């Protein structure tokens, strides 16, 4: 595809997917209903809608479906961008927010603050804090030993994730089994149905800022992916740029846990798929991953809520779709790191 067409086309697909998803649900709507509603609501033009129906539409679209779709966009974009960025800055195509332990650390932080503190600010801060600690542990373990750095970092991530999963079990064990425990379990499995306007704003703003920062810095990611020495010899202050980028990537991916629990595999497979489509240049890869990740997550969420009568937690769906897909593309993706 021509470079100049890439972003307009991806954006168009995103808008169409989002609009189509607005029509889906227990109460099916047509695209006409939706455009009619928004025209009337925002500009006061178009056909009159019977007030009762207008209320129903408002409730369905503004309170239920739109937040859900916006959350899917934010989560898909955040996980994919942070995955692509982690892969470049650690010179390792096998890492992702999930594999580095960010999601496990964030889940622990969130569960802990749900049990001990009851404030949104605490939940967000601890989610981010423990996500960040988890990456540092993974990187620290990898740096302690000499050897195959790609493998060691994956191993470090596995250890870090295991540590926080155990700590999470402690929290579950001491949580009140009638209210808190089911809430934690349900929420960790991942679901977009509970997303409300407040959560969306609280997590969405830092996520959007983080994604913008990452896009601005994407030119440095290419050089960082050449290894520290080369990047530094190209005049890049490697230490602080990488710390900043780890911070930003962790921020956006940890906050996905606040929105919808632990959603695995997206941060690993979307960067690979996007790299296959647009090449490895991070100046294009990072924004393209954001769009493709957003489209993917809306799509998977549609499957989650439409496939059966009951909604399947989206964390389960992304894994079920992602794992076989990764197994298939592994052969092709492997080319890059052999």
């Amino acid at each position, binding site marked *: 595809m021509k470079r100049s067409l890439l972003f307009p086309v991806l954006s168009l697909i995103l808008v169409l997917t989002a609009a189509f998803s607005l029509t889906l649900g227990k109460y099916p709507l047509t695209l006409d209903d939706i455009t009619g509603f928004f025209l009337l609501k925002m500009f006061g033009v178009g056909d009159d809608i019977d007030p009762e129906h207008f209320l129903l539409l408002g409730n369905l679209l503004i309170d239920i479906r739109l937040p859900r779709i916006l959350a899917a966009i934010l989560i898909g974009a955040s996980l994919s961008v942070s995955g692509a960025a982690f*892969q*470049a800055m650690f*010179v*390792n*195509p096998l890492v992702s927010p999930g594999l580095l332990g960010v999601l496990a650390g964030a889940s622990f932080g969130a569960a802990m603050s749900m049990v001990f503190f009851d404030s949104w600010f605490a939940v967000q801060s601890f989610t981010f804090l423990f996500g960040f600690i988890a990456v540092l542990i993974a990187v620290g373990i990898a740096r302690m030993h000499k050897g195959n750095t*790609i493998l060691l970092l994956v191993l470090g991530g596995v250890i870090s994730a295991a540590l926080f999963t155990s700590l999470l079990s402690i929290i579950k064990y001491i949580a009140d089994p009638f209210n808190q425990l089911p809430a934690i379990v349900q929420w960790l499995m991942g679901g977009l149905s509970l997303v409300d306007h407040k959560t969306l704003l609280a997590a969405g703003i830092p996520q959007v800022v983080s994604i913008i920062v990452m896009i*601005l*810095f994407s*030119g*440095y990611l*290419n*050089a960082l*992916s*050449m*290894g520290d*020495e*080369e990047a*530094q*010899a*190209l*005049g*890049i*202050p490697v230490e602080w740029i990488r710390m900043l980028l780890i911070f930003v990537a962790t921020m956006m991916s940890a906050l996905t846990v606040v929105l919808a629990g632990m959603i695995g595999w997206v941060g690993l497979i979307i960067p690979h798929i996007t*790299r296959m489509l647009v*090449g*490895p*240049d991070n*100046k294009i890869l990072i924004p393209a991953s954001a769009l493709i990740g957003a489209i993917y997550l809306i799509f998977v969420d549609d499957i989650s809520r439409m496939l059966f009568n009951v909604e399947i937690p989206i964390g389960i769906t992304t894994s079920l779709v992602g794992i076989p897909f990764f197994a298939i593309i592994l052969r092709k993706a492997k*080319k*890059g*790191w*052999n």
Partner: protein
Amino acid sequence: MELKPLIKVEDISFGYSRKTVLNDVSLSIRAGEVVTLLGPNGCGKSTLIKIILGLLRPATGTIFFNGENILHIGSKSLAREIAYVPQIHKSSFPYTVMDMVLMGRIPHKTFFFRYSKTDVDIAGGALERLAIAHLADRAYTEISGGERQLTLIARALAQGARTFIMDEPASGLDYGNQLRLLDQIIKLSREGYTFIKSTHSPEHALWIADRVIMIKNGTVVADGACDDVISPENLFHLYNARVNILKLNGSSFGVCVPQTICGCWKDDNDQCWE
């Protein structure tokens, strides 16, 4: 008249925890020289190279570039003067050759940058100079070792630096590509580029170096014109290997010939003797 040195290394020492890697190393390099660092594995060549590039901080001592302490030169400004050409490596990601060479423009960019038309032209010019313009859109992971080495040199050219520091540039290259690499270095040095390179092959030094610096156990053991320094005695001291240095049939290129291998030597009739 003694020319002012381009790079002056003064009393550098460096060590990791208990192990001393470099001990009181001093040397100076003039603009336009091709300087080869020779020494056995682990002698401190690579460490010295990293210190000159500003990648490692020496425990003691100072490095001056054009009379200025390199620690006082910003890393971007330094990158516009000195380029690092690493050993050929496999990238983890299949960047195109053009993407790789464009990275050389980073020291010329401000904070949040996009590559401009000028950057692309400069990168294209660097590829053309090394006769690899046809590779621009190929994946760096899929071209040959020799082509990768040329790509890394093109990146250094695009960087605009006039001093190239190469850590064992010939390693991993086949015989023909090694010779073409030396050829390229000579061509660029004639245009005024300065080269500091380490190698494991004394012959490469004999063929293209103006000057050879021998390093053993972290100290400089010999420093001087190539023909003076590369002698059987010095090579024995450096590598504990006995070789003769010959010039055949009036060729201006010397060769190193082992005196013995496994205690055998060959006579004029190609017969082996104990």
